[in-house]
């Protein structure tokens, strides 16, 4: 556990969040927080409302009830791109890369909230636009080095294999240099080796960039290893919240999700 968590300062806290679609209650009365510098896992069976939770956090869904506090301030009703500007980036369960663009362009798009040159300078290119482009290119190259994807820099991402696409998507979220990174099943569909790589990247992201991470993952081995704290959802309700060891032995969590080993 890193030192930052001990300070106990919450980067994000959700208070009594309820979200429903018509008659279906996707989330009801969820309260939890994510501390600065922490890796926070959200687990639960399918349909528990984990992805809805992330969608609430980055403003894609607006909860009918409850408060979202981010970085010390109550968040009003904002559009997703405004929330991105505040410093929340995410990856998706099904890869949502820009398939027609190269790896480099995908990562550069991740930095779009940090680029400001206007239409006129963009058209002229020489001068402001180029300078800005080169500045951000350097940052993106740093991330390319970090994720070891130098060789596919100019390859259209549509041509890349699944595991690499997942990595590029992580890179795109990293490029935003956000305060909070949301990862929706970053290891789904990966083999053991790819999972190990991804775990290493996630831990390194936290340690090198100081990013706070909230992730959804089904691989319990991974979750228990890398998460600092875990929150468990089931049918839109919170049924567990605590350190991995507590969760592992929690009766309700075992009943709802983890199950018992046959012995």
């Amino acid at each position, binding site marked *: 556990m890193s030192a930052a968590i001990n300070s106990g300062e919450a980067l994000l806290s959700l208070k009594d969040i309820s979200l429903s679609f018509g008659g279906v209650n996707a989330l009801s009365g969820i309260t939890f927080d994510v501390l600065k510098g922490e890796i926070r896992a959200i687990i639960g069976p399918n349909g528990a409302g984990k992805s809805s939770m992330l969608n609430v956090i980055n403003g894609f869904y607006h909860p009918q009830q409850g408060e979202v506090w981010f970085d010390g301030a109550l968040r009003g009703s904002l559009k997703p791109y405004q929330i991105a500007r505040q410093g929340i980036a995410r990856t998706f369960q099904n890869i*949502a*890369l820009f398939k027609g663009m190269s790896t480099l362009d995908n990562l550069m798009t991740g930095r*779009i909230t940090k680029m400001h040159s206007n239409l006129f300078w963009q058209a002229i*290119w020489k001068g402001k636009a180029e300078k800005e482009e080169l500045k951000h290119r350097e940052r993106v190259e740093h991330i390319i080095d970090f994720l070891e994807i130098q060789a596919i820099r100019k390859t259209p991402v549509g041509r890349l294999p699944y595991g690499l696409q997942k990595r590029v998507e992580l890179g795109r979220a990293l490029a935003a240099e956000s305060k909070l990174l949301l990862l929706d099943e970053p290891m789904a569909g990966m083999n053991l080796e790819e999972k190990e790589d991804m775990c290493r990247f996630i831990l390194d992201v936290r340690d090198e960039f100081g990013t706070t991470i909230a992730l959804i993952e089904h691989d319990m081995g991974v979750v228990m290893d890398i998460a600092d704290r875990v929150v468990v959802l089931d049918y839109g309700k919170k049924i567990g919240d605590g350190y991995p060891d507590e969760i592992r032995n929690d009766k309700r969590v075992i009943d709802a999700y983890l199950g018992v080993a046959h012995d």
Partner: protein
Amino acid sequence: MFYRESGDFKSSYAADQQTFPIRFDRIAVGVVLVFAFLVVPFVIDDYWEKSILLPFLVWAMAALGLNILTGYCGQVSLGTGGFMAVGAYAAYKLTTGFPELNMFLVILLSGGVTAFVGIVFGLPSLRIKGFYLAVATLAAQFFLVWLFNKVPWFYNYSASGMITVPERSVFGIAVTGSGAPSWATYLFCLVFVVVFAMIARNLTRGRLGRSWMAIRDMDIAAEIIGVPPLQAKLSAFAVSSFYIGIAGALFFTVYLGAAEPTEAFGIDKSFLVLFMIIIGGLGSIFGSFVGAAFMTLLPVLFKNIMVAGFGWPTDLVQHIIFMLVGGLIMFFLIVEPNGLAQLWRVAKEKLRLWPFPH
């Protein structure tokens, strides 16, 4: 062999992301530009101007515009003809209303007017996508043409309802009207096309272009990453309409001289430009030029071969050309659905490795 990138090392990011990273490309483009600016104006005659070069330049401009909207930003538009009409009528009102105004300025302002109209008709794109948007832009096409037919102010209350361009000059040389020399009209259009092709390249490779492509490839992810959809889509509509407006203004002032909206800017023009960018390559500046060349020059080439070469009757040749061009469009779309630009890209990749493909 001669076309290669081995040994062409880049030592800075600026060099790595230049428009033509391969030396041979840079030389080739340079040669073409020098030829277009310094040789063609001296050898151009009326036939080459009116049948080949002007149509190619004007349609290349329109294709560039539509490619920004459809190819880069993924918003299908069938309003191209209508937007060209806006450019043409804006140019007409400006040349007749302000006779002193420099022709360059007239064309640019016409583009500006069209950009504004484009934004207005782009508003539905915030709610509707794909084919539905195409239908919405179709409304723009019919409404605009109807408007220019119906409101006499637009055609200065002329009895015929036609608009005719007055003679205007740039630096003392006429570029519009029947007295304009071929080389002058050609150079006038060429300057616009070259400058705006470079601008299109710059816009599409930077922040703005990436936000357009992000919207095209996955709009939800784009928004969550921080691309404001409203700004991205409307800026694409504005820039695209600006280009198309310029194309329309050039088409009317320099090429046609006189125009009637239903005839000159009908729905067939919208489809023509759309075909150009589909065949040339969506999301490619080079593809816009190839597509424009394919659709404007191929019929001329066939006509020359069959009428002048084989001595066949003109009306028969006309019909054969329809079939031939149609057949070729299908052929190329089957061979390479991503357009001729993609075909060229693949050829370049092969050429780079030739003669050792592995």
